[in-house]
């Protein structure tokens, strides 16, 4: 997704169009620089700033995730850090000074600081005498069966049509709301409903009788007459 943001300001080049910004990652004349996008976020209407923010997100999210992962080594924490970093960029867009490297140096600095803060907090864990209750270790057979089930469901999900699979995982694993899934996939909420329903029906057919739960766990449904 590439946004074309036309930036018009009263004071012209003094604010957003710093000399270095033209050398930023997107040097192509058709592609807005990070500085232009930041200016758009800060000054343009809500729709325009949304688009500019999405463009910056697409441009730098992977790199920021990488920076965060290198420090915290936990995927969900790295995602939290990336999210917080971009939200700070969104809120402070008008105050961020962009140099030759575009928004990347600022983003990397913020992400690294947030990640380091988290690491420090993690180290301040209270030490107790009593070990945590880990419960009984799973039986070897149970583990084997569970592993087989996991493999089967993973394979069944992989076998779904692309859009059904994406909608299903966004809903059940990532716990996005229907409207957000629709926005992410460029579909209406009704279309997402339909994708989810078809995906679950296909999975039920594929898995019925194959799992430990058997027919009790996944009963075949009567088809609507």
């Amino acid at each position, binding site marked *: 997704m590439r946004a074309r943001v036309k930036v018009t300001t009263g004071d012209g080049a003094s604010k957003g169009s710093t000399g270095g910004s033209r050398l930023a990652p997107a040097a192509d004349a058709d592609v807005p620089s990070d500085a232009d996008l930041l200016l758009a976020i800060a000054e343009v209407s809500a729709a325009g700033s949304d688009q500019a923010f999405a463009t910056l997100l697409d441009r730098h999210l992977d790199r920021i995730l990488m920076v965060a992962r290198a420090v915290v080594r936990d995927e969900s924490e790295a995602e939290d850090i990336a999210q917080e970093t971009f939200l700070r960029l969104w809120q402070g867009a008008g105050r961020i000074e962009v140099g030759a490297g575009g928004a990347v140096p600022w983003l990397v600095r913020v992400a690294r600081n947030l990640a380091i803060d988290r690491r420090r907090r993690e180290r301040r864990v209270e030490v107790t005498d009593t070990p945590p209750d880990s419960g009984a270790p799973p039986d070897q057979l149970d583990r084997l069966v569970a592993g087989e089930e996991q493999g089967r469901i993973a394979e069944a999900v992989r076998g779904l049509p692309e859009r059904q699979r994406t909608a299903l995982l966004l809903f059940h694993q990532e716990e996005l709301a229907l409207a957000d899934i629709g926005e992410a996939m460029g579909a209406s909420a009704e279309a997402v409903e339909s994708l989810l329903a078809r995906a679950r029906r296909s999975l*039920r057919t594929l898995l019925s009788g194959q799992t430990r739960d058997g027919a009790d766990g996944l009963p075949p449904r009567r088809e609507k007459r």
Partner: protein
Amino acid sequence: MTEREDRHERFAAMLDVYGADPDRWPPHLFREFAPWLDEPSMAATLAGAAALDRLLTEVPRDAEVARMALRQRILAKSRSRDVLENPAVETTDVRVGTIIAFEHERDRGREGSRPQRVRPLTTDGPHWPVAALMAACLCLGIFAGLGASSLQQDDGVTVASVGLLDDFEDAPPVGTTDDDGMFGEDQI
């Protein structure tokens, strides 16, 4: 098809979309089906959906889908933060005198539920006449109070709570001295 069969059919269709977690069902569907969840056929269908939900949690996370979700979460969050940062964007209808009702459980999720302006306490236009009147009343009250207390002191009338003021009977009135009614240099 009987009403019961029809209900079961619609319940199964809802589970196909939203899964077995009632927290994720649309509120109006939850209200519709909640009273019937103990019915054996409904309970069995729900158990089947829950089993599939459990299996889905065992699917390894897909990196591409996870990134897509993260991107969407950040975009959604930025919008909600924008509203918090700039309340005027969403709350232009809320003014002085606007009563915002708490959302009743039965209305949760209903679209278009907005705070309703019940009774404005002020109207558009300048507010200074009201403020001036209130200030005048305040001044009048202060002067009237001061005048009354000086009258009482002149007449030698105890103001109130004689018992509590026993220790102070011989003390001069506050802010005065015995002789000329002004503070002496040593008292300042």
